[in-house]
Structures are given as structure tokens and as C-alpha cells.
């Protein structure tokens, strides 16, 4: 397979993977819900100490916590940083819907695909929210010390997720490499 064909195939597979969740209403809703949950977790993890204190004081502080931490991401990382977090949340929604579809189509026997999915999700999740967790673990200033306040890590996480999605393609199709 030539390089050009491979790139073309990669692009087509990625497109198929990204398009799958919008093939039915239930998939769209699932992807959106997963994306929202992921966004909430990522935002809360940008300042875990504060999140724990605020939510520990009562769930009535949930919206304030989300707003304050979102504003803090904007003040620290700008719109680009916030866009990265949103992108990661959306991609996670797509990835999880696709994984569920893949399992339902090919069964749990498709272990090689699962092995491909899990590290992708974990690695990208860690890359995206790990900066905040580092601070929680006592590495003060970890975020500031990271390139572009952790944005580079987030970009790395998103690339990992896109790579996984392109590798898997449309979860309803078996891929044959010839």
C-alpha cells in the first residue's frame, strides 16, 4: 500500500469513526451524555482540591464550581485550552459509543480491538486531566512547568484518541489489511 493510499485510508477510517455516533438518535444522545460527563470530570480535575471542598460543602455549589473552574481554564490557557478540553470530551463520547458498538457487533472476543481502545482512552484521559491531578498529588506548579500550561499534553491526548478512532474506523465494519 502506497503512502498516499495509507493516508487516504486513515482519513476515511477516521471520518467513518467520527460519523458513526450520529447514525441514530440514541447514539447521538449517548455520545453527548458521555461528553458532558467527561467535560465535568476534566474541569473538576483542573483544581481537584477546590472541587472536593466545594462539592463537599454541598451539591448546590456544583454550578459555581464548574463556572469558576471553566473561567480559570480560560484565564490560564485561553480559548485554545478550553477548546482542547471540549474536543477531548467530544472525542471521548465518540470513542466510547464506538467501543460499545464494536463489542456488540464483534463480541468481546475482539480482544485486540479492546486492547487498542483502553490504552488510548486512559492515556488521553491522563494527558488531558493529569496536569490538575499532579497538583493534587503535591507537585505544586506542575501545570505551570508544563509546556503551554499543559496544553501540549492535551494536544498529545487528543492525537492519541484520533489515532485510536482512525485505527478502529466504523465499528460495524471488519477491516482487512491487504
Amino acid at each position, binding site marked *: 500500500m502506497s503512502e498516499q493510499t495509507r493516508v487516504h485510508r486513515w482519513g476515511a477510517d477516521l471520518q467513518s469513526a467520527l460519523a458513526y455516533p450520529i447514525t441514530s438518535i440514541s447514539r447521538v444522545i449517548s455520545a*453527548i451524555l458521555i*461528553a*458532558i460527563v467527561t*467535560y465535568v470530570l476534566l474541569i473538576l480535575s483542573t*483544581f481537584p*482540591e*477546590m472541587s472536593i*471542598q*466545594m462539592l463537599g*460543602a454541598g451539591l448546590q*455549589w456544583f*454550578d*459555581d464550581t*464548574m*463556572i*469558576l473552574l*471553566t*473561567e*480559570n481554564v*480560560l*484565564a*490560564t490557557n*485561553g480559548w485554545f485550552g478550553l*477548546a482542547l478540553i*471540549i474536543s477531548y*470530551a*467530544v472525542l471521548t463520547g465518540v470513542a466510547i459509543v464506538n467501543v460499545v458498538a464494536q463489542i456488540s457487533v464483534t463480541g468481546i472476543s475482539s480482544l485486540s480491538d479492546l486492547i487498542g481502545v483502553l490504552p488510548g482512552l486512559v492515556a488521553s484521559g491522563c494527558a488531558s486531566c493529569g496536569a490538575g491531578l499532579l*497538583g493534587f498529588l*503535591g*507537585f*505544586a*506548579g506542575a501545570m*505551570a512547568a508544563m509546556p503551554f*500550561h499543559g496544553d501540549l499534553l492535551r494536544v498529545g491526548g487528543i492525537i492519541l484518541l484520533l489515532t485510536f478512532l482512525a485505527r478502529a474506523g466504523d465499528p460495524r465494519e471488519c477491516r482487512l489489511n491487504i
Partner: protein
Amino acid sequence: MSDSIDKNSRRAFLGTAGILITGLAGCTSTNTETDNKTTTKQNTTTDSTRATSNTYSETTTETSTQEDTTSTTASKPQSLVYASTETTDFGINLKDNPLMGSPNAPVDLYYWSDYQCPFCNRFEQDTFPKLLEEYIKPGKVRLVILEYVTIGDASKTAARMAKCVWRQVQEENPDAFKRWHASIFDAQKKPNSGWAIKQNLLKITEGVKGVDANAVESCLPKNKQSLSASVAADKQAGKDKGVNVTPTFIFDNSTSNGMPSSIQGAQPYPRFEATIKEVMK
């Protein structure tokens, strides 16, 4: 009124952010609350606070009419901002740190910050003015300002400059430090974007009444070692108390047997109020 508008606009912001996740883009949020912490006048001092702090009640009357004419000498009323060489019951050495509020306040509030930290700025703009009016000026809480440099080299520069400013003004015009501190936070931009380099900070300093920018400029190289040591001592004191992020606030009531409480991040004013009430018990 402005709080409710602010709250509503924040909720609108959150809703828009939710829509963003689904693939749309574009929303914004602004902090419209003005900075009044350097110009707010003292309005009331309750009888109960007079009872706890006679010296300070004279002072607050003074600061309400002429904030800049205060000093730390015994013959003059106590300024809102002042110096001390004591080591508190909580174990924090106050030498080289600005204090704000009554020396007899039942609660000490230790505030570790970084001039480049956006959440510190959020506290300065949103929560501090209310805290000042409701607890610091009435003599219920004494604020201790400590440096906790984490964000970058410019943060170190700002922290050292803060120490220079404090050393310069603490004897004759301690309230000038409050103005300088507020001016730096007002000028804050994105962390490590260059806004906190020495020359820009000096330029801001030039505009602060009661602070000699030239003296601050010469103070920085002349006292580099002691300034660094003082900034490092603040950070170490924080680390010893479990601080690892900015802003961190620790509330300690030396007159009770209760444990100190802490707040991390720019939490809303009611969270501060609830914590102070808890610590005061």
C-alpha cells in the same frame, strides 16, 4: 443586585459551555465587578468589635476619612495595614509580611498567593472586598499576606518586588502596600505572558501613590539575597502547613481549641463566611 446579575450571567455561561460540548462554539464571560478595595471607606464599626479591639476601632475611624495619614507608631492610630515581628500561635513568623486588620482579631487568615495566579486575582476582585468590609475592618479577622511562588520566574520577580515595596512603606505609609498589591492584580494578564516582567511591574509601581518606584528598582538587586530568602520562607511556611496550590487560605482561631480550616482556590464569598463562622465557634 449586581451579584444576582453576575450569577445569572454565569449560569448562562455554563449553559453555553454545555452547548459547546455538543459541537457548537462561542460563549464568553466577563467579570464586571469593579475593584473598590483600595478606595472603600469604613462605614460602621459594631460595639462588639470595639470591645474586642479598642485600638483598632480608633484606627478604622481614621482610615475612613484619611487612609494615607496612618502609621504604625504608638502615638498614632493603628493603620489598616501594619507590620509585626511576632510569631503567631499558628507558627507563622510575621516579620516581612503585611498584616491587615485588628491585631486583636480572634481569627487569623493566612493567605498564600502568586501575583500571576488567575484564581488569586479572582479572590482579590470578588471576595476580598466583601471580606474586608465584613470581617477585616470590623476587627473579626486579621489577614496575613504571604507569597507562594509557583507559576514562573515572573512570579518570583513580583514576589520579591512585593517584599521591597513592603520594606519601603511599612514604617511610614503601610496602606500604600495595599494599593500596590491591588494595582498589580488589576494589571494581571495570562500567566507567563510577559506582563509581570520587572520593567512592567515597575511601570505599574510608578502609578501607585505612596510607593517610590525608583527606590523599589534599586532595592531589587541590592537586597536580592534577603528578598529571595523572605519569599522562600513564605513558601516553606506554606508547605509546612500543607499548602501546595494558590491561592490557599488557612483560618486559625488562636483563642479556641478547634482545628484550623482551609480554603483552596477562588471560592465564593459565602464559603469564606461559612468557614469563618465555623472557626469562630
